[in-house]
């Protein structure tokens, strides 16, 4: 195992910059997740670490070793693909032994390591099966065992769970996480699934359009999103566009005046509120920011109700109300009282 650093990685194809100045240090044994919408450069970043894409600029160091110019087969990165990529003409045991075979380890010494790797992923006894005889989840575990058996310096997971169905995904998610902790594997995982990222990561990197938007723990990203993109991408936020009129004063486009501690400076800005910080009905009465909102649309989602409300003709925002016993579902056209504290929102300069 080793620490891993990405030093100002950059990848351009012609005029298009796919990865732009990505600098991340990953500690020994850390589980880092690259998260972002498709096309944000997260997979390209991972493939640069694996050695399949040569960076246009910047470098990659694993442990003390600069691997920037090394081919993939000399990097010792265990790689797990979304599509498993098992060797269909080899048995499970042969698949898992492949990395050891390539390292010229004698057949007699391979067997115990293959058995150990298969035991780790709970597939002991599947040695002689062929990949086509296994379910998707089992195939993905074989792929994981294959990557683990060669004792990689770094484990790279490329959307490893995306091909599994929802229930299985949760199981395998926990398994991978436990295994990673137990073995102390330095790991990078790429995913576009927010829940997956939040449950598995030690730290997350939010990427968009090739750039790192924010690096931090789940709590840091949720409570102190660095910009409007992160605020909208991690968890949900209600956004109100407007401007800062004075310190701690925010006026929406529709002219609604809001007291907000985070409003500093001046000019066009966006106020972001977490839905759970917004009180509804009686609870809102004592709060400094208190408004009559018109219900535009309500969606019943089981544990919560998603409600789209308007504060004025130009200001619409999202509310989430816990679906408690005795709470009536607001109907479109009704007026409800909503409110929040002055320290509830975050304000970002308006993005062009």
């Amino acid at each position: 195992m080793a620490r891993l650093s990405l030093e100002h990685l950059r990848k351009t194809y012609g005029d298009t910059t796919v990865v732009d100045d990505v600098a991340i240090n990953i500690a020994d044994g850390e589980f880092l997740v690259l998260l972002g919408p498709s096309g944000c450069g997260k997979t390209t970043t991972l493939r640069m670490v694996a050695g399949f894409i040569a960076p246009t600029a910047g470098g990659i160091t694993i442990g003390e070793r600069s691997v920037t110019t090394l081919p993939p087969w000399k990097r010792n990165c265990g790689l797990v693909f979304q599509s498993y990529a098992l060797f269909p003409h080899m048995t499970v045991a042969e698949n898992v032994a492949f990395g050891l075979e390539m390292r010229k380890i004698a057949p007699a010494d391979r067997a115990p390591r293959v058995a150990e790797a298969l035991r780790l992923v709970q597939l002991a006894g599947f040695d002689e099966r062929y990949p086509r005889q296994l379910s998707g989840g089992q195939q993905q575990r074989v792929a994981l065992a294959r990557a683990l058996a060669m004792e990689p310096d770094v484990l790279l997971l490329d959307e490893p769970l995306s091909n599994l169905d929802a229930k299985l995904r949760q199981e395998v998610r926990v398994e991978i996480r436990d295994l990673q902790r137990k073995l102390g594997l330095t790991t990078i995982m790429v995913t576009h699934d927010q829940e997956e990222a939040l449950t598995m990561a030690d730290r997350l990197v939010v990427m968009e359009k090739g750039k790192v938007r924010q690096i931090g723990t789940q709590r840091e990203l949720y409570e102190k999103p660095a910009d409007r993109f992160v605020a909208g991408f991690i968890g949900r936020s209600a956004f109100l566009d407007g401007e800062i009129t004075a310190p701690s004063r925010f006026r929406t486009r529709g002219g609604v005046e809001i007291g907000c501690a985070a409003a500093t400076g001046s000019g066009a800005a966006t106020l972001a509120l977490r839905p759970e910080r917004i009180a509804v009905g009686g609870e809102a009465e004592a709060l400094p920011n208190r408004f009559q909102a018109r219900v535009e649309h309500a969606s019943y989602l089981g544990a919560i109700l998603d409600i789209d409300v308007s504060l004025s003709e130009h200001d619409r925002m999202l509310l989430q109300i816990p679906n408690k016993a005795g709470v009536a579902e607001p109907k479109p056209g009704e007026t409800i009282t909503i409110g929040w504290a002055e320290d509830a929102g975050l304000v970002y300069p308006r993005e062009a």
Partner: protein
Amino acid sequence: MSTAPEPVAGARTGLAGLLVVPATLFVALGLLGPIAILFRYSLNQFIPGQFMVDGLTIENYVKFFTDAYYLNVLLRTVRVAVVCTIVCLIMGFPLAYVLARTQSRFKNLLIISVILPLFVGNAVRAAGWMTAFGSKGALNASLMGIGLIDQPLEIMFTETAVVIGIIAVNLPFMVLTLQSVIEGIPRNVEEAAFSLGAGPSAMFRRVLWPLALPGVLAGTILTFILAMNAYATPVLLGGPKFQTMGPLVYGQFAQQNNWPFGGAIAFILMTATILLTVAAHLIVQRRYR
């Protein structure tokens, strides 16, 4: 990956059975019929002046296998076919791989340029080679013109000319067969091998080659059969001095009017092709399964 293919629509109603009838009938009437007749003819007697006399004799086969001249023709044909097939495989695999893996938007153009030679008929192409390879042809004229050689190279009417000609005809078949199979091998599988420490040659040996084997088999069988039965190329580039089985069969039918012996040679050619193909198939399968 693990899901079974959907049954052909209408399989239960017997419609699927109906769909294979036209092709089956065509093959049965158009191929098996003539072969059966040919086989019957090959057992007839040939008496000069009387054309064909009904009989039941193996003397035509005996004649072939006891005459060094005919055995040599068979041996030469097999040798040419084997060499052509191996060269096609060695040259075709890298090309097929590039075609299968390229992300270029000109991919279709590249594939068409591989097929393009097939638009020119064998005879036309061989005629072209004749003008190129002849002692006063383009190749010799150029080489002598720039002073590389004093005497014209003897390429025409040699084994080399025939081999080059057949390779040129067969290469597209090999490339297209391999390309479609390689395209079905996910790129990720190769990348997985690389990430596990396999260099390019180990990856090829342990992953790409075994997975491409069905295509290799199909491609070699196809080119081998075509090379064994080549007609226009050996006639035009090999000439009367360089006999192979295809022209030999034709000669017996059209020039010697010896239908029984022609039929026997045709049958020997067909049997040799099938036996060698099956043998190669079995050897490869045993080795890699």
